[in-house]
């Protein structure tokens, strides 16, 4: 296991640098720059001074190496759109709402989806099954901004139970969390249903029944454990995807999260922030997949015991 993990960590590092290079080149290949005339009406001399100050007058490879040298020392630079703080300070401030709302969305949505999927699989072709698949189809097909709008309309406007938007009071969290939870719940409901049905049709389940085990024990210990194998592996990547904030959800509920910066950093050619966001996401996905693969090996004895892969 250990050499496997080491090898995978090495490949994470390689992926990280390859992605950083690609993003850096793509970012600079977009025409325009941070201090173009229509964005920032300053004189040519001032602009040149700014460019020199930020090192933007250097050749690209020098800029890249300088930036990556900083990254290795956890220095991601200063965002052009908010020069009063470092990129790290901006991210650690803006990421909190995204992490709380998105993270809770997955943490609440996934178990609900599992329950829904289990109920569907155990009551196959009954109204419970049909209800569950309708719910999960709706969750997957309706875009998140429509869900958000409906939530606001029903719970804030019509029923007047909850505030429509804002941050940081906990009662304002409920609607965005519900919006975030829809997709993990729908995805998990589908995965769980098909994984459980697949396991239930395997011969060993008949053997378990034939030896007189109770139906509860068969479902909760044997079937669930076997079905969990594919479920565990999708959790972390899904968590990362949701907990980095959705621009739509954050715009709808006016949450000061990370989502908006994904767009503004590209629009404003805010190179340090754009690089930092992309590198952070790349790194987290790499680690998420690595951890998923390790957990997969740990719960599946055929992989765990059968050599290294």
């Amino acid at each position, binding site marked *: 296991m250990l050499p496997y993990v080491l090898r995978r960590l090495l490949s994470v590092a390689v992926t990280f640098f390859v992605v950083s290079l690609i993003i850096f080149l793509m970012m600079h290949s977009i025409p325009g720059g941070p201090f173009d005339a229509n964005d920032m009406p300053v004189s040519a001399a001032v602009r040149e001074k700014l460019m020199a100050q930020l090192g933007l007058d250097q050749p690209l490879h020098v800029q890249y190496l300088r930036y990556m040298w900083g990254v290795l020392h956890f220095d991601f630079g200063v965002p052009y759109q908010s020069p009063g703080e470092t990129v790290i300070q901006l991210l650690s401030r803006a990421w909190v709402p995204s992490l709380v709302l998105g993270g809770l969305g997955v943490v609440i949505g996934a178990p609900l989806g599992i329950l829904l999927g289990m109920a569907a699989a155990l009551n196959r072709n009954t109204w419970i099954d049909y209800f569950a698949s309708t719910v999960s189809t709706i969750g997957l097909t309706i875009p998140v901004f429509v869900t958000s709008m409906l939530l606001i309309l029903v719970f804030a406007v019509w029923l007047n139970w909850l505030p429509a938007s804002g941050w940081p009071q906990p009662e304002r969290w409920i609607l965005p969390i519900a919006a975030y939870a829809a997709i993990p719940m729908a995805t998990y409901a589908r995965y769980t249903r098909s994984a459980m049905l697949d396991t239930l049709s*395997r*011969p*060993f389940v008949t053997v378990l*029944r034939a030896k*007189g085990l109770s139906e509860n024990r068969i479902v909760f210990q044997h079937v669930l454990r076997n079905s969990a194998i594919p479920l565990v592996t999708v959790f972390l990547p899904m968590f990362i995807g949701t907990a980095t904030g959705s621009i739509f959800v954050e715009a709808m509920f006016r949450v000061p999260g990370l989502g908006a910066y994904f767009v503004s950093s590209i629009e404003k050619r805010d190179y340090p922030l754009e690089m930092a966001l992309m590198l952070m996401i790349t790194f987290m996905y790499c680690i998420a997949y690595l951890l998923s693969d390790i957990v997969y090996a740990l719960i599946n004895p*055929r992989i765990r*015991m059968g050599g290294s892969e």
Partner: protein
Amino acid sequence: MPLVEIEDLKVSFRQYGGAVDAVRGISFTLEEGESLGIVGESGSGKSVSCSALLRLLPATAEVTATKLRLDGTDVAKAGKEDLSRLRGRAAAMIFQDPMTAFDPVFTIGHQIAETIQAHRRVSKREARAEARRLLERVEIKNAADVLDYYPHQLSGGMLQRAMIAMALSCRPKVLIADEPTTALDVTIQAQILQLIKEIQAEFGMALIMITHDLGVIAETVDRVLVMYRGEIMEEGPVQQIFDAPRHDYTRQLLASLEASFEPAPGGADPTPALELRGLSKSYRIRRRAGLFHEYGDFHAVRSVDIVLPRNRIVAIVGESGSGKTTTGLMAMRLTDSSSGEIVVDGKDISGLTPEALKPYRRRMQIVFQDSYSALDPMMTLAQIIAEPLHIHGIGTPREQTGKALEWLERVGLERSYATRYPHELSGGQRQRVAIARALILGPSVLVADEPTSALDVTVKTQIIGLLKRLQAEMGLSMLFISHDLSTVKSLTDSVVVMYRGRVVEEAPTARIFADPQHPYTRALLDAIPATNPRERRQRSFLSAEEIAAATPRYTVIQTGAAPRAEPQLVTIAPDHRVEAYVTP
């Protein structure tokens, strides 16, 4: 009161477009300690009847019976408590494929202990100790280790033993064995059957043996039910069924045990159709050694020499893992060999490029074991059979289809089947299509890799008959890879015995069955199930070490071979070679 009472049991399965009757009103009883065999082909309702007895059928099954009693309890009315008592304590079941019968994510010990704890109030520690005793009882030597093994770490034979241990764990009154040896090699089958008989006597259980194999019936039971299409055709003591069958279907089944064919005449041309010289296959495998890996070679086939003369049928027999299928695939160049020559009509084809090989592909064809996965499900039968003609560019599309239709008839299917798809056919019919596809190019060599091992007995006999007829008509040279020794005995002209990747004995068929020399050949022949209950006997089984120790010894004078420290193949009679030590 009988242990099992079934009266007028009917089972039908609801399906899209109607219901299918699987069991049509059967009745039988089973007394304590009795052993009953239920024989019939797949779909005859034999397994379904026994699953109904434990209420193991899916929700789509509709079960009715005037009486369905197990150990005095009405099965249909049994509540949760009753059901849990019936399953495991009144009756325990063992299943066909031990590889899929265990939950892959729990250890063997856990799964046996959990069964014990489901039925008796004992601590986990006691349950584990009991599990260990049971594993020892079913002759698993390292029982303490096996407790902590996961199912994938054990072989099929070992798993079936563990399955039997699990079934015994609650001292059931009746053991229901559903094709318990169908997925196993013939030597392992003999061991498992003997074990079942022993423990049945020791624990005083009744036994229901469900099988399609009359040999298994002849070996194990006292009374037999013959089932066909959901009905009981015939019932009686086992000896009477074998000696004086009353029903046509029973006679048909028995006839399949005694098929025999004319030997192939051989060809005028002395050049063999196919010759394998020193053919080997090794795989690189890696093992973990601390932080690093070490590489080793796994020899699947070690320097095999096989000669297939023209117009003859040569069998390759051996247990799974002996390398017989790999040898067949290498001979066809479907798997690359690590070293050695494949000589077809005097030319070595082992190093040819794909283009240079193409004309040779026409002369060599193969039929696989699993006809279902060997046929493209998206193509019609006519397309499947005509495809080789298309690949080799023979004839116009019209002629190709015409020839495919001829071949449909030649393998015993109607021309109207041309537009059907593989899933619409039975296993036997699909195998006929596979044979037509292999032979439409008029090859001189046919490799048949276990072509009948997935088929029912009566169908198997028909397919073997078809292969033999076509072999004689076309003067084919056939390599018949099989572990079914009774078919080998009736069909083939000579036999090559493979064991652990080596050829250990080779001789004309009659000679090898009459005078086997190698201990492994003897073990293999001894394991063939009896064809009549009168021939039942106690067998003793050799371990791999005992087989190695019993390797024959000859002197230089007897064989003319040079002495060597390792065993070598020596000729001891015309066409009879055996692996032996040669001493000065």
